[in-house]
């Protein structure tokens, strides 16, 4: 089942078009939503949870239509907003418990799960402190706790590492990876930090000026990248291209001993080293071509 299906979705604020004709179907365990500032990432998320009305088309979240089935969507989704968001003068445990109860948990179950969620995110020792006294990183974790307290099937995280110092960011990334790998929930992560998305997401959707400019499966991209190799040889490398072609590789000479190759399925790199050893050719450098998320993103931005 697809996690997110956009079917000609458009959103307008007054005369201004924020999202236009978005069409895509995503089904990965974790989906990254990327784009420069003002691309419409947060608006898309707010539309999915029903804060904004679509002006055209529709979207389905876990099979529920955002126009018809909003209560079901809200019952199955956990949302962590981008900005500071908490209820003043409340302890973390009371806050998370109340949010659990508002999601439909009975009082006792909500209290038990509030404790568990706060321990899970690492706020166990600080759970009886007032939220107003929390640091920025702790507030982010409290927001995460309230988003997972009711056991959502889809967790929507809007800029989860905003304002976090490196250790806190690492902790947040680790939590997201754990939740993703638990298989109990799907994740939709909105961020402008490519590294965060690369570390946590399997699929990415890139927006620019309210339109989809790229949608790809990072896992497949990574697998595909392992077939592209660049190497630099020193010595008598004449005949290298022919020898590699004989082994089934596509090889092109870039000059100055540099070669670019596309390896066939099941090809072992050892074959290259063996040939080089037999011809006394030195291999100075051998890299997989790594089409990073940054490159994918930059290409998408050129559109």
């Amino acid at each position, binding site marked *: 089942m697809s996690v997110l299906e956009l079917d000609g979705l458009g959103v307008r604020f007054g005369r201004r078009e924020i999202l236009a004709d978005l069409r895509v179907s995503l089904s990965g365990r974790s989906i990254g939503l990327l784009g420069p500032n003002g691309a419409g990432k947060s608006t898309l998320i707010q539309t999915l949870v029903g*804060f904004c009305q679509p002006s055209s088309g529709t979207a389905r979240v876990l099979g529920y239509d955002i126009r018809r089935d909003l209560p079901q969507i809200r019952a199955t989704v956990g949302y962590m907003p981008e900005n500071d968001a908490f209820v003043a003068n409340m302890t973390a445990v009371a806050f998370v418990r109340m949010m659990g109860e508002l*999601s*439909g*948990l009975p009082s006792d*179950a909500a209290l038990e799960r509030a404790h568990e969620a706060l321990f*899970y995110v690492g706020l166990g020792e600080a759970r009886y402190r007032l939220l107003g006294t929390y640091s920025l990183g702790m507030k982010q974790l409290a927001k995460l706790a309230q988003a997972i307290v009711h056991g959502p099937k889809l967790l929507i995280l809007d800029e989860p590492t905003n304002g976090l110092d490196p250790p806190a960011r690492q902790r947040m990334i680790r939590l997201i990876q754990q939740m993703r790998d638990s298989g109990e929930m799907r994740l939709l992560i909105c961020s402008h930090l490519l590294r965060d998305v690369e570390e946590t997401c399997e699929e990415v959707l890139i927006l620019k000026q309210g339109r989809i400019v790229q949608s790809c499966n990072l896992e497949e991209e990574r697998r595909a990248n392992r077939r592209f190799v660049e190497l630099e040889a020193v010595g008598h490398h004449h005949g290298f291209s022919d020898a590699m072609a004989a082994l089934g590789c596509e090889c092109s000479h870039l000059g100055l001993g540099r070669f670019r190759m596309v390896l066939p399925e099941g090809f072992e790199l050892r074959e290259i080293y063996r040939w080089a050893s037999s011809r006394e050719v030195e291999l100075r450098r051998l890299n997989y071509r790594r089409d990073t998320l940054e490159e994918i993103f930059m290409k998408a931005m050129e559109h």
Partner: protein
Amino acid sequence: MAVYKQTYKPYGGSQTPRWSRFLILGRSSYGRLMQSRFLVLYLMACFFFPVLCAVFVYASHNLSILESLNIPASRIFQINNQFFEFYCGFQGGMACLLTAFIGPGLVAPDLANRALPLYFSRPFGRAEYVAGKMSLLLYLLSLITWIPGLFVFGVQAELAGWHWTRDNVWIAGSLLAGLIIWDLFLALMALALSASVKWSLAAGALILGVLFAGGGLAAAVNSIVRTNYGSLLDLRQVMSVIWSQMFRDEQATNVPVGQAWIALAAAAAICIWLLARRVKAFEVVK
């Protein structure tokens, strides 16, 4: 799941009915409010006048007590519609102060801390949010207005006998309806004004201003424009006119009853409009 395991686990238990969830907000705020000593003391003070009224009712039916206190029976007011109208006016004023104390903390902090998206991303709507916040204020206002009012009426009914009760049961109806209307209006107005500003202190000042500075403003408008319509800006006077009608009191006022009802309805409509504008998950900044 044991706390020490610290692993994520989905929830598969029962769910509460959706209609009852609005009460969670009131319950959660109630606990925090009751930590304020000032509020507890003020609530206790609010019961002083109803107790005094009950004692007065009891004394008016026990002439021997009056004689022992050297109070001539002729100086005692009659327990009638005007007595309960006065009760409404007094306790209605106490309700205003309670509203000004509790009201600012209802919506303004949620706006200031951007908590509304957290509420509305759940199966919990704007109407339920407003109902939940109102329920707390309505509960406390009821506690100091119509509930002790009906108690005083009950004491009078018990002491005056069946005939008096049968002839005056409409007073209980007017007391109940008049104070519930006032409580509802106060709760609505407090929420609307609390939602209009993000700073609790400013919200409190605004509520006090609307309730207690309305008289001065009304007098100023009346004298400058040479009209009586300015009195419609004084919501407490507007309500007292409505109470006069409900308690069948023929006192002359400069505000016709029909206009008073329209003014109250218009003020309530403005409050609902303000709430609809302000209580949203997010704002579009132009």
